[in-house]
């Protein structure tokens, strides 16, 4: 290479560039890149060629063939061509010389068809729609076909071939996981790039992987309400998976889908997305799908403000989720999808998805509403705000009949919160009322007993009416509820019963069972089977302290801690509960499984832990009576299961020990195999160190007594 000397100025100019390159005088055009190496720079000329290819396809996408034209002699040919040109250029622009109207060479009659070349494929398609079936006169109705289609049609074999019989292959049993011999439950966990479905094998104190897949979803996953299918959310839409092998059952397209809502019966699904439109206002699209076929039943699509009303309106003019709510489909009840709008609720019945009785349910000044969680009830509660002289109102409406089951008028309302009992047996309405000065509010509860005659309402006030209510939680499958109330970081928990169990008749009447003060608790979590209540102190400053209470005996079963826990999730049977630290926390990501009584069973850590969802179970097929009978004779049944559990544990123990034994012997073998190396190293060290070498066996401890004269002083001693 030629030696290039640069001036100091030039050197400064090309600082940081490779040395020895003549940056001073070189022409970009002179640069010769190695052949077949684009140096990571894609050529733009190559690309162009490719693009053109894509457009052209067969090259005839913009050509239309029109048949059934009148066949005319040469003298009329010019006129007909002129007429045709006019008709054909209606739906699109014909290219110059793009109309080819052939004549027979011998008879000079026109052949009765024409080729029309449009400017592009879109125009040709538009023309196809317009010209196909165009009635020129009584005898001539145009038959238009895209040129590309002609090819295909021409290729159709002359003879009809019987299509092959398609054999029905039964799909996998979607309820397969319920037939687990040991009655275990499944959950899905999402961490890192992985999504994994696991058994919760609590007796063995570990999870057992069922199915694992990387990049299974681009957003999140969700079980259907009875656990039959798992929905994975992708940029393009939603895919549904199920059965033993987690094969794909169905997929639906909804670009940019953000939310997902199954009907309680799992038959229908609503997908929802919301994005700002070009003016920056939120715009939403919601599709309703039939799960089994993947058929789209209906699409809801803005204007936004029609849906974002009352309590569902967000400050940014968007709407709060869930805007749409499902009900029914269980126990023969019709399936309804409903949403609130101004002064009404619109209810649609699946699968036709037409508005019920073609008109909305009129509810003046409606603020908020909620379906009863008991899907068979088809009952909704609506809160209508105060309006002029009209008081605020809470009304229970039954559908499809629209009859009002019960209503309650309320005055000087500041805010309302409605909480349904999970079985739809009760409804709690928390009413915040303005004091006379309108400066502060007091709180009371209106408690509806839905299952009793005429739906009686009980009023409940806390001893301190101005106390803040943090959470109201109904006991599933029971009549109790728990209240989290108070100020500051250490609120109180009160447990009430809607039935007075002390009186012999079990008559209705709200009874305070117990109040626990000064609890480090931010949320209440009832076991899905009732009776057991978990008090959790989640999030910042609480460090995940947990208290497991038995509300039957009103005793603390145990207290625990899952440091940094943010979420609590009971399994569907109420036997186990998971506490979760998700990726919102920088460290400690993972989950811990506890028994209902607060025994810590096992802990699994995964970096970047996002989601844990227990697989829900469908409702029991046993009648309520039968279930009660089983609970009564639990001892009889439990013996068998206890024995099974013990056998299992013994087996697990032996497996565990065998595994350890194997690991240990493997290690010993390895150490053995390196024996020669170790001996050589030892010998070398001895040789190198010579007489300095002392092995530990030769090391001798000797006690040495050292006496040092510190000071000498002469003293006269008197005798």
């Amino acid at each position: 290479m030629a030696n290039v000397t640069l001036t100091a100025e030039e050197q400064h100019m090309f600082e940081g560039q490779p040395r020895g390159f003549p940056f001073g005088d070189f022409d970009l055009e002179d640069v010769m890149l190695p052949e077949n190496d684009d140096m990571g720079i894609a050529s733009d000329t190559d690309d162009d060629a490719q693009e053109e290819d894509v457009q052209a396809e067969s090259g005839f996408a913009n050509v239309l063939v029109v048949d059934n034209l009148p066949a005319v002699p040469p003298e009329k040919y010019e006129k007909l061509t002129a007429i045709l040109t006019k008709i054909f250029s209606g739906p699109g622009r014909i290219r110059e010389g793009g109309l080819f109207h052939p004549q027979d060479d011998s008879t000079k009659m026109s052949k009765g068809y024409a080729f029309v070349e449009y400017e592009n494929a879109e125009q040709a398609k538009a023309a196809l729609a317009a010209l196909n079936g165009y009635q020129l006169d009584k005898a001539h109705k145009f038959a238009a076909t895209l040129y590309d289609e002609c090819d295909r049609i021409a290729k159709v074999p002359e003879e009809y071939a019987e299509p092959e019989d398609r054999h029905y292959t039964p799909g996998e049993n979607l309820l397969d996981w319920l037939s687990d011999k040991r009655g275990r439950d499944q959950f899905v966990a999402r961490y890192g790039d992985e999504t994994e479905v696991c058994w919760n094998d609590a007796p063995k104190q570990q999870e057992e992987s069922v199915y694992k897949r990387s990049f299974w979803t681009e957003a999140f996953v969700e079980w259907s309400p009875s656990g039959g299918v798992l929905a994975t959310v992708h940029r393009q839409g939603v895919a549904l998976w199920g059965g033993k092998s987690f094969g794909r059952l169905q997929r639906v397209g909804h670009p940019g889908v953000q939310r997902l809502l199954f009907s309680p019966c799992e038959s229908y699904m609503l997908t929802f997305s919301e994005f700002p439109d070009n003016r920056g206002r939120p715009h939403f699209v919601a599709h309703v799908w039939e799960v089994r076929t993947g058929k789209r039943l209906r699409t809801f699509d803005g204007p936004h403000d029609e849906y974002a009303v009352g309590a569902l309106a967000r400050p940014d003019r968007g709407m709060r989720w869930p805007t749409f709510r499902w009900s029914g489909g269980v126990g023969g009840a019709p399936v309804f999808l409903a949403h609130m709008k101004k002064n009404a609720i619109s209810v649609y019945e699946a699968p036709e998805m037409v508005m019920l009785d073609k008109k909305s349910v009129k509810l003046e000044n409606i603020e908020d509403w909620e379906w009863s969680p008991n899907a068979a009830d088809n009952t909704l509660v609506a809160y209508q705000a105060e309006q002029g002289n009209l008081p605020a109102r809470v009304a229970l409406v039954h559908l499809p009949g629209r009859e009002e089951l019960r209503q309650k008028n309320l005055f000087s309302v500041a805010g309302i919160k409605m909480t349904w009992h999970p079985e739809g047996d009760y409804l709690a309405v928390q009413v915040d009322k303005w004091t006379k000065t309108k400066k502060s509010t007091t709180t009371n509860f209106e408690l509806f007993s839905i299952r009793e005659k005429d739906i009686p309402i009980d009023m409940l006030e806390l001893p301190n009416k101005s106390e803040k209510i943090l959470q109201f939680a109904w006991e599933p499958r029971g009549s109790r509820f728990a209240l989290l109330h108070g100020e500051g970081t250490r609120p109180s928990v009160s447990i009430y019963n809607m039935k007075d169990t002390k009186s012999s008749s079990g008559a209705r009447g709200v009874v305070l069972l117990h109040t626990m003060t000064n609890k480090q608790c931010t949320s209440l979590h009832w076991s899905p089977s009732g009776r057991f209540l978990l008090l959790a102190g989640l999030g910042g400053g609480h460090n995940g302290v947990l208290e497991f209470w038995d509300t039957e005996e009103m005793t603390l079963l145990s207290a625990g801690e899952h440091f940094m826990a943010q979420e609590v999730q009971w399994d569907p049977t109420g036997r186990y509960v998971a506490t979760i630290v998700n990726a919102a926390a920088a460290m400690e990501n993972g989950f811990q499984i506890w028994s209902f009584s607060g025994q810590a069973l096992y802990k699994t850590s995964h970096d970047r832990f996002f989601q844990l969802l227990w697989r829900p179970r469908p409702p029991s097929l046993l009648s309520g009576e039968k279930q009660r009978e089983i609970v009564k004779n639990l001892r009889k049944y439990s013996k068998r299961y206890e024995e099974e559990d013990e056998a299992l544990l013994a087996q697990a123990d032996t497996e565990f020990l065998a595994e350890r034994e194997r690991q240990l012997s493997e290690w010993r073998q390895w150490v053995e195999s390196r024996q020669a190396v170790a001996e050589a190293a030892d010998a070398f060290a001895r040789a190198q160190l010579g007489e300095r070498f002392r092995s530990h066996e030769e090391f001798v401890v000797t006690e040495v007594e050292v006496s040092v004269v510190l000071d000498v002083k002469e003293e006269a001693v008197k005798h």
Partner: protein
Amino acid sequence: MRPYVLQGHTRPLNQVVFNAEGDLLVTCGKDSKINLWWADNGVRAGSFDGHNGVVWTVDMTYDSKVLLSAAGDSSARLWSMEDGSELFRFRFNEPARACRFSVGEKLAAVSTDPFMNSVSAIRLFNIAADPADQSAEEILNLTGPRGRITRLHWTDQNRTLLSSSEDGMVRRWDVETGKCLAEKQLHEKQVMDMQMSTDGTHFITASTDRTSKLVDTQTFEVLKEYKSAAPINSAAMSPIFDHVLIGGGQDAAAVTTTAAKAGYFEARFFHKVFQEEFAQARGHFSPINSVAFSPDGTSFVTGAEEGNVRLHHFDADYFQIGDRI
């Protein structure tokens, strides 16, 4: 097992090491001090004063007469362990980090950090039998890898050198030719510590990627892996039992942002074969930077960011149950 807390450093500890006999303990830290302690009672026997920069690592001769130290003041020094005087000084243009005598102490290796225009290097020196004859002549200079070299070990009868570095690699060097014979990416993040087993057949690494690995010296094959929830700064192996001791904790810079419990400042014992944690020793209130077992396996020592050294002597029952764990 009440530990002795040795408070002889005012700044974070970098390394704690026992001598070959196990009666002496040497600690060095960021306060540029090197302290010498009696290992049985934690009384300070003396100090080696003279460095004016962070002292990263130290090594001792087999007969505990000479101490080698590598420091951030761009020097490595030889000290007399009998009277604490400085015997010799190797001067560099870069901070020195790892140092190690060869088996037999005829050679020493010192690593220097990348600094200004120089890359990281391992320098070999002859060690004279009489300190008066010591020369500063560098007999070999191994360069190449990026990232600081954190630990060095002489292996294969002084024919090769192992180095661990901050790019997560462990490399084997030929000390005759200066070539890199083998390298392996053992960790995703920097390797903070690498300690050799007594028989030299395997070594243990500690990394801020929150794992510690047991590696075959010959093949660099990972035999076992120990996981922690926080970065690991140091790992040691018990010379008598199949136990592994790891120390670390949440990065000192992030400690104040989380609760004390999340720091993981405990020293943790793992079973070497089953890779399961079975015990912890609490006491430090900042990340542990260095851990070491005494050569007879009866005690261990931990040195932490807060400047404290904790010297633990195992209880009698450790030796009864030790085998069974």
